[in-house]
């Protein structure tokens, strides 16, 4: 069940007051996905801050969609941004495959395109015969790091549950694979693995029933922090706080608190606020150079635990 009217797109005024004064500055469109996730509001804020410090270099317009499923709208946004004459599109695609044709058209129209956060599907890129640089983290190894850290607190033979992200998002799949690898290495069994679509409330419901179906579960591995929040609440409701560990991914503000309180064991910081910035910088570089082929840029992922957080 879901919500209406695709009002979900977001944009912000160019942070620079006299945006129109300098027609030579390139216009950069940042197209994000699910605004139902604060990961992206953090991302947006990071980008805006960067822009205000470099307002002489580019103009920024940001948009997003209401949730991960609003794919049609994201494709439309690409069209609209091309229509409104932007020079650069930095995009976190909601779907690894479906965005490729639209982005190919954008490139054909002379727009520089950079892919961030969620990697576009390699085979589709090949079939469409486009190359789009990816700027983002290695989600699988990031998730593996989190999983490995969790494994230290568990013992061999323990049972855990996994909350997957959207099944159509490449980074969600990668994180699941990372979790699985870590558990396999430590000899821990995954007894339940379901997608909660990156959402808090869905994760809450699913975790609650995972716990009553598998009372022996020792930990929940959530592919992002929104879902980790839902898991923590479900564990609390079942009266098992402390008995079931939770790990997440993203390091959103709300989770920092939970880590300090010990309700979440660890998360991965993929520097969401910098992710768009990396993308924008890469795009501006391409714009400035004559060489049109660019390599992917891997951004850092850091493990966050109570120890790494300043008290």
């Amino acid at each position, binding site marked *: *069940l*879901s*919500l*209406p*009217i695709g*009002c979900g797109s977001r944009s912000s005024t160019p942070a620079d007051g006299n945006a129109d004064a300098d027609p030579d500055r390139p216009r950069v469109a940042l197209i994000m996905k699910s*605004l*139902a*996730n*604060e990961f992206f*509001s*953090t991302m947006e804020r990071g980008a805006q801050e960067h822009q205000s410090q470099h307002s002489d270099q580019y103009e920024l317009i940001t948009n997003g969609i209401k*949730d991960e499923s609003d794919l049609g709208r994201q494709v439309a946004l690409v069209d609209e941004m091309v229509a409104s004459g932007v020079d650069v599109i930095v995009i976190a695609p909601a779907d690894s495959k479906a965005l490729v044709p639209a982005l190919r058209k954008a490139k054909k129209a002379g727009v520089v395109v950079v892919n961030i956060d969620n990697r576009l599907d390699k085979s589709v890129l090949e079939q469409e015969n486009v190359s789009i640089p990816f700027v983002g983290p290695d989600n699988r190894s990031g998730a593996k790091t989190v999983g490995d850290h969790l494994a230290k607190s568990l013992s061999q033979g323990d049972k855990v549950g996994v909350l997957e992200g959207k099944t159509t998002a490449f980074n969600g799949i990668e994180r699941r694979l990372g979790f699985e690898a870590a558990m396999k290495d430590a000899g821990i069994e995954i007894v*339940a693995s*379901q*997608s909660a679509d990156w*959402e*808090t*409330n869905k994760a*809450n*419901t*699913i975790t*609650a*029933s*995972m*716990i*009553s*179906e*598998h*009372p022996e579960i020792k930990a929940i591995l959530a592919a992002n922090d*929104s879902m980790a*929040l*839902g898991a*923590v*609440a*479900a564990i*609390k*409701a*079942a009266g098992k706080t402390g008995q079931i560990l939770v790990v997440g991914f993203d390091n*959103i*503000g*709300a*989770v920092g*608190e*939970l880590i300090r*309180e010990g309700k979440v064991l660890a998360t991965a910081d993929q520097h969401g606020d910098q992710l768009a910035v990396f993308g924008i910088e890469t795009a501006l570089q391409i714009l400035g150079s004559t060489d049109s082929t660019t390599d992917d840029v891997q951004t850092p992922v850091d493990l966050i635990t109570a120890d790494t957080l300043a008290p």
Partner: protein
Amino acid sequence: MNPDPSLPTQSTSPPVTSTMNLRSVIQYAGLVGVLVLLVIVFGSLSENFLQWSTFISIANQVPDLTLIAVGMTLVLVVGGIDLSVGSILAFSSAVLGALMVDWQWSLWASIPFCVAAGAACGLFNGCVSVLARIPSFIVTLGMLEIARGATKLVTDSQTKYIGSAVEGIGEPIAGLSLSPAFLMAITAVIGGQLLLTRTVFGRYCIAIGTNAEAVRMSGISAAPYAIGVFVISGALCGLAGLTYASRLSTADPNAAIGIELSAIAACVIGGTSLMGGRGSVVNSFLGVLIIAVLQTGLAQIGVSDPMKQIITGCVIVIAVLLDALRSRLDTSTN
């Protein structure tokens, strides 16, 4: 006049003898039957289903939807619809979160404002739709967007972690093993049912939903009642915002997206007419329970997500279908 082709004869050949009460009692029995059936099915499919922990987990989930469904029943009875419930819930819990986190208010000081925020949204819905006479579908669809936008403004689009200060609402009261949230929901159900069946207010709501013009021509001004119902729905969404926040310990700007369809489904499963004039709060509650048991059960038996959706869809249709067949049987043998 006769709005659903699927009910072509309802208005002109109502069941002969059945009174409102009798009808809804029969319906009640049918719903309990469906519920029991679901519990048995899930109990036999999953060894861990028939356990106290499952019931606790269901009891934890239902307060939000129950509170909303109570208000929705009333709104449907007067012949309106409220699509904005999810956004109002989110807005109220955002207000709660802002007060408790940013302003450091206590829970008790914040609750009235949380509920008032919901009631205010409901007042807007009611006033615009009733006084300007535009379909509540559109007004509340507008509010769905507006309140969601306001929520994001209030929370700055960030999930606000409130923490243990709000958790008490969702935790079992010592000795009772029921949480205040659950008790609030039950109170709302009982209060709503009494309001609808025993008070002048409720009677007028039913009358307005049946034939607003006849009510007007009886010298009763419908507006205060119709508006009142939207305010009640809004206030209950405010309460639901509180229970939601307490369940997740956070004020989540994306809370309860899409809950309107679940709430309406619960009401219709419970026999409330989308055309107004007919509804039972208790039966809507049973509708909520059916949905909750179905959700929890399906999650526990671990069928795949696609199958889960297919089964959910089928059960919704079948629940109403059974009810329709049964009531047709009643009428014809009666």
